């Protein structure tokens, strides 16, 4: 459903109040807490979501992750877009 959705390079993604990333040992790692929902967050999702503070732009987040993971920028761009667009559609991320 989120295929083909583009995020503006200057958007500043932010987790709204009511959506929280937290590390919980008893539940086996990082989870994203949302209204009546709990999502397990893998290592890549955690790195992306930690950067969604409303300060960094989408473009800056992609650049930062490209440098951190030494991966092709296109692939990082696609991964970040997929995760963030999916969350925005569920109203769990502000763009």
């Amino acid at each position, binding site marked *: 459903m989120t295929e083909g959705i583009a995020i503006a390079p200057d958007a500043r993604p932010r987790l709204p*109040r009511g959506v929280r990333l937290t590390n919980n040992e*008893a*539940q086996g790692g990082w989870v994203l807490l949302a*209204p*009546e929902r709990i999502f397990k967050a893998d290592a890549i999702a955690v790195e992306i979501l930690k950067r969604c503070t409303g300060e960094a732009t989408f473009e800056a987040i992609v650049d930062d992750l490209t440098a951190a993971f030494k991966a092709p920028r296109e692939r990082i761009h696609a991964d970040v877009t997929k995760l963030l667009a999916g969350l925005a559609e569920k109203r769990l991320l502000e763009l």
Partner: protein
Amino acid sequence: MASRDQSLHSPLGLLAELTHRCPLGCPYCSNPLALEGRDGELDTATWARVFTEAAALGVLQVHLSGGEPGTRRDLVEIASSAREAGLYTNLITSGVGITTRTMRDLWEAGLDHVQVSIQDSDAVSSDHIAGYKGAFQRKHALAAEAVRLGLMLTINLVVHRANIGRIGAMVDLALALKASRIEIAHVQYYGWALKNRDALMPAREQVERAAVEVEELRRRHQGRIVIDAVVPDYHARFPKPCVGGWGRRSLNVTPSGKVLPCHAAETIPGLEFWNVRDHSLQDIWALSPAFGAFRGTDYLPEPCLSCERREIDFGGCRCQAFALTGDARATDPVCHKSPDHGLVARLAEIHADEPYHYRR
């Protein structure tokens, strides 16, 4: 401390029934027929301890509920202690009994999310169903204040025969209130609601039309609002997975501190519930007889035991199995494979346009 079963899951959610007191008289109230009184309610400090123990046990989310949680004068302190324990704190309210001032205090205390129920799309019908004049307007005001403060809002639409034709209008109302999420909650027949089953039961055609309408609404409002809905029990082919499996994902603490595997568990006779006044939540989760009673799937009869959905719906709801068949270990008769499914089908056809028995 006694030994623990290593295969135990950690619970994810805790429903904190802070009180059974409520100003509304909703005919579909699922709380038990015998309500717990104010005198027996846990105090602020005990709730704080429960939340700390819950977090240690792995619980991530707490739902402050009731009754109407707003009837507790220490609601803000209670919410604050849940947040301090690190729990994602959700308030489930009728919207009546919480002032906008209290809402602001809750926001300051760190509340994460608010869920407000509505009874219908217009004030007259809504107040009639709730049995409380002026409820609609107060729900509106509280929901608006929550959004103004920047809290995410879920609107819970309680659906039954009288309002099932107005789901579209109720969704419009939730959109106007700037909710981010809607829960379409078909009435479930537990506790007081059983008294009103014939008056609340929708016709099959209504349920089928509503399912089509909800799909259309989802498409139309995609990206603006999330709509969660399930098929109502008596019209479903498969049962709901009772609380995600008995003693597997969640626990429920009553106003007086009894810990139940699910909201309606006390309707099943012979279960022994432990109280947070006498035991730690850890011990209750791992060792109390009520939690052990239907944990896992080994006790299930056929057709559940060899069913490919056994680990999906866990044979359905134990309370419903007991309420309808008299045997809490039976296959939930909502399942079309249950030998008792004919009973559910017959009950779903019984409708009586009679006045509601309000909860007073």
